[in-house]
């Protein structure tokens, strides 16, 4: 069966949208000082920011997987009013303005907050530490993993799981051998999305963790600071961030195509 063609006039707004999205990015590449790019990127502040970003994003992505994946599995099975409420709450940080996310974390985990006070009684003080950066990134990135994995699990067919259970597999075996492999493409793309979101995290980090070179000053924070005094460094770092993000999105789309062919 051949799908009917799209109306031809659609090309005009679609083209406009593409131009609108692409022009600022191309303009940025045009402003890069290519000659001095290596020395701009080699400054201690830039190198520290890049490594800190990669380290914290890896840590927060692992946290997203370890905690978010079980949440997605539970939410995908849950039924009823509470399940709906759970789904809404789990995706809420995704639509919050980042600075609101930062304020929420501050009110919950700050030194003066009730949870923060209990943590410091155990000698855990998050204020201005790299751990605070990871907390902020995990908070804003986890919903991306949960939502994409949960959606895939809910639309997946259950007869393989039922068959495995009938053949005597324990719940853990079903999860390990059937459910997770089937959801693998969604898990991979959700992980890449969460990593990308953590990499771009700015507002919550600035509000909750502060900004210190090598400790809490991630790439977006360093770009924001560099912009104040040295536009060339800011643009050079932005391009690096853009390239990493583009790579992640490419990985994501490869995985979703794999998923498209198998389902």
């Amino acid at each position, binding site marked *: 069966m051949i799908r009917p063609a799209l109306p031809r006039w659609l090309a005009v707004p679609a083209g406009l949208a593409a131009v609108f999205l692409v022009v600022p990015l191309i303009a940025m590449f045009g402003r890069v000082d290519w000659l001095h790019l290596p020395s701009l990127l080699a400054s201690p502040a830039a190198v520290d920011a890049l490594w800190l970003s990669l380290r914290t994003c890896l840590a927060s992505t692992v946290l997203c997987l370890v905690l978010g994946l079980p949440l997605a599995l539970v939410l995908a099975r849950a039924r009823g009013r509470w399940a709906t409420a759970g789904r809404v709450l789990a995706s809420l940080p995704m639509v919050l303005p980042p600075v609101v996310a930062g304020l929420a974390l501050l009110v919950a985990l700050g030194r003066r907050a009730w949870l923060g006070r209990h943590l410091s009684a155990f000698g855990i003080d998050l*204020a201005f530490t790299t751990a605070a950066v990871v907390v902020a990134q995990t908070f804003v990135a986890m919903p991306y993993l949960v939502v994409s994995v949960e959606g895939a699990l809910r639309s997946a067919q259950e007869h393989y799981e039922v068959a495995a259970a009938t053949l005597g597999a324990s719940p853990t075996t079903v999860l390990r051998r059937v459910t997770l492999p089937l959801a693998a493409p969604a898990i991979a793309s959700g992980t890449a999305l969460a990593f990308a979101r953590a990499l771009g995290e700015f507002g919550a980090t600035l509000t909750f963790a502060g900004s210190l070179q090598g400790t809490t000053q991630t790439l977006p924070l360093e770009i*924001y600071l560099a912009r*104040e*005094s040295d536009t060339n460094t800011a643009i050079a770092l932005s391009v690096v961030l853009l390239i990493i993000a583009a790579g992640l999105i490419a990985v994501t789309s490869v995985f979703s195509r794999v998923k498209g062919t198998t389902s």
Partner: protein
Amino acid sequence: MIRALVAVTALALLSACTPAPAPSTAPRTELVVFAASSLSDTYTSLGKTFEGSHPGVTVKFSFDGSSTLVDQLKQGAPADVFAAADRPNMTKATTANLMSGTPSLFATNTLTIIVPKGNPAGITGLDSSVDGKKLVICADGVPCGSATTKLAKLLGVTLKPVSQETKVTDVRAKVESGQADAGVVYVTDAKASGSKVDTIAIKNADQVKNEYLLGVVATSKNSRLASQFVALVTGSDGQRTLSGAGFTLP
């Protein structure tokens, strides 16, 4: 369907490009003032004064970091008056021929320490009492950070901050919320934080002054009105408002 879509798109483009028609028939003149964030309280109230004495004039403000505003002016942002929070940023604007005439110095600001109410960490000044404490300052690239570095050098102390913020208001927020034990901010910020913080004076703080300058933007179409706004700020009304907010007068 197609026509409706085209009409909607055209309307959206149009409404984004043309200013909304004024509700009254009398032509209103708009005076656009670009001013450093630390001036937002004083300038907003001076803007009201200006509108009161100039019927038919609306004063519109854009408050942001001085360097951001200079960047916007360089890109051709339409402004009539520009007020910077430090001399280097105003120099950037004058060397780019963005200003008409010589900008005038209208206020200075000095640094002070703020601590959460009750001073739980026992800070006594910019001295050994901040060692090992959660001290937050401005980053070196921004005006308040450069001033902090200069003052620390003058006092012969090495600061080990836990965070270097891009905006002085972020330093304030971290002290007000109790996340930080101490923060170095402008006297005007300490005043604006009010009873949420305690203020601790820094020795020799008056030796490092941040200079506030303003002037008429070269491309202004209302340069006469713009000079009148400059005159208001540098005149007795403006100076009274500024000193009330904690600024030192030149």
